[in-house]
C-alpha cells in the first residue's frame, strides 16, 4: 500500500498537520448540531482526510465501510428524461459524489442527490456550473432539517456567495514545509528508514506544499533508490515534465509551425486526462520562471483571461491554444523590440 494511504490519519485525534482545525471540528460535532460545511484549500492540504475523519467521528467505524457504485438517475427534465450515471461512494450514513463529473448536467445531479436524507459529501464544488450551484442552494435550504452537506473544493472564490454564506467555511491551509518534514520523518520512523539530514526538507521543498505530493515523491524516491543519499534527485511528475517541455518550445521559437507543434503536445496532455486548467496553470508558472520581469504581468493577465474563458467554453484546446498564440505574439514583439 502506498504510504499516502497507509499513514492517512483515520480519526480526528490522529491528525498531525491541522490539529487545531481537527479539535474544533470535533467539538463542533460532539457538542452541537453540525452546520453545512465547506472545506476549501489547495490540493494536498488534507481536506478529504479531514472530512473522512470527521465522518468517522460522527458515525463511528461504520463510516469507513463504504461501497462504490455507479448509480443511475432518471431525471425528468420536462420533455425528455435524462439518464445520468455517476459513481457514488456511500456508507449507511453518508453519500459522497462529485457532481461535476456529469458535465453540464450537474444541476440535475445536485437536485437528485438531495433525495438522500443523510450526510451528503460533494466534491469539487468549485467546478459546478452556476445553475448547479443555485440548485444546491435550494437543496440546502429545503432539506436543512434532514440533510447535511459537506462541500469540498479547491477555491472558494468559484463557489457562489450564496452557498458560502450558508456554510461554515473551513479553510484548510497548505501545510507548512516544516510540518511536511515532520510528517515525512514520522513516516520514515514508522517504516524504519534512514533519512539523511536535509533530505526530507528537499522533498518538502519540491512538493509545492502539498503533503500528498510530498509523501508520494518520498515513496517514489524510496522505490528508486534506497538507502537515500542526501542529494538524490527527486523525480518530477511525468506531465509536469511535459508541460515544461512545451514551455521551452514556446520560448525558443514563435512561429505558426511551432504553434502547431505545441498544439499537438497540448492535445497529448489532454488525451492523458490532465485537466486543462491545471495545464494552463502549470504552463504559466513554468513560463514565469523564464520570463523577463516586464512581461510577467501581462502574461499573467492573459493566462487569467483565457482561464476564465476556458471555463465558459467547452473546447479547452481552443482556449489553451489562444493563450499560446497570444503569448507567442507578445513574446515575439518583445524580442523584436529588445533585440531588433
Amino acid at each position: 500500500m502506498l504510504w499516502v494511504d497507509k499513514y492517512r490519519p483515520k480519526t480526528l485525534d490522529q491528525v498531525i498537520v491541522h490539529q487545531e482545525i481537527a479539535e474544533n471540528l470535533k467539538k463542533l460535532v460532539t457538542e452541537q448540531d453540525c452546520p453545512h460545511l465547506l472545506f476549501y484549500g489547495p490540493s494536498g492540504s488534507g481536506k478529504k482526510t479531514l472530512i473522512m475523519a470527521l465522518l468517522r467521528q460522527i458515525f463511528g467505524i461504520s463510516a469507513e465501510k463504504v461501497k462504490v457504485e455507479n448509480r443511475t438517475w432518471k431525471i425528468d427534465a420536462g420533455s425528455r428524461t435524462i439518464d445520468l450515471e455517476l459513481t457514488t461512494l456511500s456508507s449507511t450514513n453518508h453519500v459522497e459524489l462529485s457532481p461535476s463529473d456529469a458535465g453540464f448536467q450537474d444541476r440535475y445531479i445536485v437536485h437528485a442527490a438531495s433525495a438522500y436524507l443523510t450526510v451528503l459529501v460533494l466534491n469539487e464544488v468549485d467546478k459546478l456550473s452556476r445553475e448547479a450551484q443555485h440548485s444546491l442552494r435550494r437543496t440546502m435550504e429545503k432539506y436543512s432539517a434532514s440533510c447535511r452537506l459537506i462541500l469540498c473544493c479547491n477555491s472558494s472564490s468559484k463557489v457562489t456567495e450564496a452557498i458560502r454564506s450558508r456554510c461554515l467555511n473551513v479553510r484548510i491551509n497548505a501545510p507548512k514545509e516544516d510540518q511536511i518534514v515532520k510528517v515525512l520523518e514520522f513516516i520514515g520512523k514508522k517504516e524504519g528508514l534512514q533519512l539523511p539530514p536535509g533530505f526530507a526538507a528537499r522533498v518538502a521543498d519540491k512538493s509545492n506544499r502539498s503533503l500528498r505530493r510530498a509523501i508520494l515523491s518520498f515513496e517514489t524516491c524510496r522505490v528508486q533508490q534506497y538507502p537515500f543519499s542526501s542529494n538524490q534527485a527527486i523525480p518530477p511528475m511525468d506531465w509536469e515534465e511535459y508541460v515544461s517541455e512545451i514551455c521551452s518550445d514556446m520560448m525558443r521559437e514563435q512561429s505558426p509551425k511551432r504553434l502547431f507543434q505545441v498544439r499537438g503536445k497540448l492535445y497529448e496532455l489532454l488525451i492523458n486526462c490532465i485537466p486543462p486548467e491545471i495545464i494552463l496553470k502549470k504552463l504559466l508558472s513554468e513560463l514565469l520562471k523564464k520570463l523577463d520581469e516586464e512581461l510577467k504581468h501581462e502574461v499573467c493577465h492573459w493566462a487569467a483571461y483565457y482561464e476564465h474563458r476556458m471555463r465558459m467554453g467547452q473546447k479547452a484546446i481552443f482556449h489553451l491554444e489562444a493563450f499560446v498564440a497570444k503569448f507567442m505574439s507578445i513574446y515575439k514583439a518583445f524580442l523584436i523590440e529588445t533585440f531588433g
Partner: protein
Amino acid sequence: MQRDIRKWLMKAHDKGNDNASTNAEKKPPPTEPKTETPVREGQEGSGRRKTSKYFAANKQKHKGDEEVEDLPAKRKAQNDGVQSVKAPPSKKVRKVEDDEEDDDFSVPKKKNGASPSKKLKSSSGRVIAQKPVDVNESDEDDVKNIESPLKSGGRGRGGRGVSGAPSGGRGRGSGRGGFMNFGERKDPPHKGEKEVPEGAPNCLAGLTFVISGTLDSLEREEAEDLIKRHGGRITGSVSKKTSYLLCDEDIEGRKSSKAKELGTPFLTEDGLFDKIRSSKNIKAPAREDSKVPVEKVTSLPKKSPQKADLKTHKDLAAEKYRPKVPNEMIGNQSLVTQLHNWLKNWNEQFHDAGNKGKGKKQNDSTAKKAVLLSGPPGIGKTTSATLVSKMLGFQAIEVNASDNRGKADAKIFKGISGSNANCIKELISNEALGFDMDRSKHLKTVLIMDEVDGMSAGDRGGVADLIASIKISKIPIICICNDRYSQKLKSLVNYCLLLSFRKPTKQQMSKRLIQVANAEGLQVNEIALEELAERVNGDMRMALNQLQYMSLSMSVINYDDVRQRLQGSAKDEDISPFTAVDKLFGFSGGKLRMDERIGLSMSDPDLVPLLIQLHKYFSYYVLKPKLNTKNYMTILKGKDDNGMKRMRLIARAAESIADGDIINVQIRRYRQWQLSQAGSLSSCIIPAALLHGSRETLEQGERNFNRFGGWLGKNSTVGKNLRLLEDLHVHLLASRESNLGRDTLRLDYLTVLLKQLTDPLRMLPKDEAVEKVVEFMNVYSINQEDMDTIVELSKFQGHGNPLDGIPSTVKAALTRAYKDENKSRMVRAADLVALPGKKKALKKRVAAILEPSDDGLREENGDALAESEEENSSDTEDTEGTGNGEKLQSELLSLNSKGIQVEVELKSGKEKSKAKKTPTGRGKGGSASTEKKPAGRGRGGSGSSEKPGAKRKR
C-alpha cells in the same frame, strides 16, 4: 417575388382595361417633377427624356394613348420606387456606363454638374447624378491605359516564366467552371495581382473564346465572367468558330492541339486585358457608329402591337409564353413527335385491338396504353401533353397533385358522386361515345395524370389504382413525373411508354428568351440570356419568371444584372465543409459578401470551425487588398516584419475561435440559437478574414489537402481515456485504501503507481518482482486493464514507453501470476467477472470485494456444504425475486460476523438484479431491497469464490 408578381398582374389588368401598351407606363407621371430637387428642375426636359429613354421609340408611337392615362402612370411611380430601392449601388455605376454608351443624348449632358447628393433621389435623377463620377472614372481609366502596355508586357512574361515550370500536371480542367475540387486546378500564380480592366461592354461582341489551362491571374470563373461581361462568348471546346484560345501556357492539351490544327490564334491573359482596355480607348469615337443596342430599340416598335394583345389576356410570363403549338416547344422535339404518334394511333391500336382480339402487340412503341413523361420541372412536360392532345382534338382532363387521387371505391357503380378517384374510374371506363357512331364527330378525351411521383400518403393506393385504371382504360392516359426512378413509380413504369424529357440547351433557351424579351419590350443581350438560361439549369419556367421579375425593375438587362440576380438562387448547391473552408480562406475570400460567408460557415456549423482552427496555421498571411483602390497592396508573408504581424493575427484569430467556442456553449447549452450567426462570425469569418491565402507546408511531403483538425478524434480519445481512468478510479476507491478524486489520481498518484508497478519488474529478479507487483495490484484492486490504463496515460509523445526495458518473459510471468492469484481470492471488480449466461459484463459497474482465501478456509467448517446448497438454490431464488429475500436476510444476519459478504441487491419487482458487493464486515445496507448473503468461500477458494457472486448477480 410574390408581391411583385401581383403588381405585374395588376398592371396587366389595368392594361387590359385601358387597351394600352406597356411602354405607356414608362412615361413619367405628372407628379414626378415635384419630388425632384430644384437643381433637377433646371434640366427638367433632359431628365424627362432620360427617364423614358429606354422606350424612346415606343413612346413616340403610343404617345396618344399615354396622354389619356392617369392610372398606369401612378403605378409607374410605384415601380420607380421599387427600382430605386432594389438596384444595388454597385450596379448603378455600371448601368450608368451603359447608358452613357448607348445613349446619344446623354453625352452632351454629362457635364451638367448635378450634385452627387442626388444619388439617392428618384430613379430618374439617379442617371444624371452619377455622371460626374463616371467622368472621373473614365479619366482614371485613361491614365491607367497609358501605363498599362508597359506593365502588362513585363508581367505577362514574368507570369509565363513562373507558371511554365510546374505546368506538367496541371491544366486538365477542360470542364467548365464550378468544379471546386481540391487540386483539380491550381490557383493562378499571380492571383489578384493584376488589375482587371474595364472596357466597352460590347468590345468582345461576336468573338468566341475557349479557355485552357491556368491563367496568369484570373480564376477560370473570373475570366469567363470578364469575357461575358464584355459581350464575348465562351465555349467548352475549340471549333472553327472559335476566335481565340485563351491560355497563358501551352500545355499541349487537346484544346491547344486542336487550335493549332484549325489555326486559331492564341491569346494570353494580358492580351485579353489589352484588348479590353484598348476598346475603352477607341470607344469614344466609335461610340456613335457601333450601336447595336440602339438598333434593338428601334426594332422594338414592330413587335409591340403583338405584345400588346398578348398582354391583354395573359398574366404570368410563364403562362403567357407557354407554347401554343407543339412546334414551339423548345427541345425534345422528337419526344413530342413520339407522343403525338402514340396519341394519334391510340384509338386504332386499342379500340380496334379490343374489337379484333389481342393480336396487335407487335407495334412496340405504341403498344403501351399509357405514357409516362419524365424530366425536371419547367421543361414543358405538361405543356407538351396538353398541346399534343389539343392538336389531335382530344379533350384533356388534367388531374394533378391538388386532386385526391387515392384508391377508388370498390363499388364503382356508385357513380361519380364520390371521390375524384371514382371520377377517374368512371372516366376511363366510360364508353358513352359508343363506337358505332362516327367517332370523329365526338369529343375524345385524354387523361393527364400530372405529378404521379407526388402521389403520397394522401393518395393511398394511388399508383396501384392508376395501374389498374390503365389496364381497363378506354381512353389514353398520360402520366407525368419528375423522377422516373422514384421508388413509388417502379411498378407503374412497366405499364407505360417511357418518354424522358431532357433539358433544353442554353442556346435553345436563349433563343426563345430573346423572343420573349422582344415581345416584352425588354432590352436584353444574348449573352445575358444565355447566362440566365444556364443559371436556371434548364428550367424554362423559372427563366421566364426571373425575366419577368427583372423586367419589373429595369428595362435593360445586361449580363451583370442576370448574374447578380441569380447568384443566390442558382448556386444553391451543397458544399462540403472542406470546400467551404477553402473558399473562405481562398484568395477571393475577401471579396465574398457577408451573407455568402455566413452561408459558407453555416454549411456545417460544427465542422467548419474545427477545420478553420486547423487551417489557420497553414495560411500565408496576406493583407487584404483594398478592392476600391487602384493600387493593390499585397504583402506576402516574407515581407512583414519577421512574421510579427502574422503572429499577432494568428493570436487574434485564435482568440476569435475561442470566442466562437464560448458562443457555441451558449447556443447549445442554453439554446440561444439566435446567436448562431454571431457564432459563425467569430469562429469562421473573422479568422478567415484575418488570415487567408494559400496553405503553408509544415511537413515534408504532405498531401495537398485540407488537413483535418483532429479535434473530433482527439476528443473521443480523451473521452475514452477518461472512462478508463474512471474505471481505475473506481477500483482504487473500491479497495478502500484510498479516497481520492479522479484528478488527484491522475495528477499525483499516477506517476507513483506506474513506478510501483514497473520499477520492480525492471530491477528485481523475476519471481520476486512479479510477486511484489501482484501484491501491490491486489492491495489497490488494480486489474490488468487498469495497469494498461496507467501505462497508456503515462505515455507522452517523444518520451519512451514506460514498459520499455521490461523483458517479455517477465510480463508474461506477471500475467500468469496475477491470474493465479485471482483465482484464489481477492479484491477485484465485479464488472469483469464473466457471468454465466451473459456475454456482456454488467453495464453497471460494481466494485466487488471478495474475501482473501485464508479467511474462507478458516471459516469453512461445515458451512461449505450448506453454502453450496444455498448457492444452488440461490440461482432459482433470484428468479423468484424478493420472496426469498427474507430468508436470505436471516441467514445473512447470522453470518454477519463473518468476514465475507457479497451483497446482492434485488430490485424489488424486477428480476434483473443489480449486484453490489460490500466490503468486508460492512453493516446492513441502507436500502430495504438489499439482501446480503454470505458467499465466496469454498475450499481452496479456487473458482468457487467468484462463482457465487457471479451467479447471484444474474
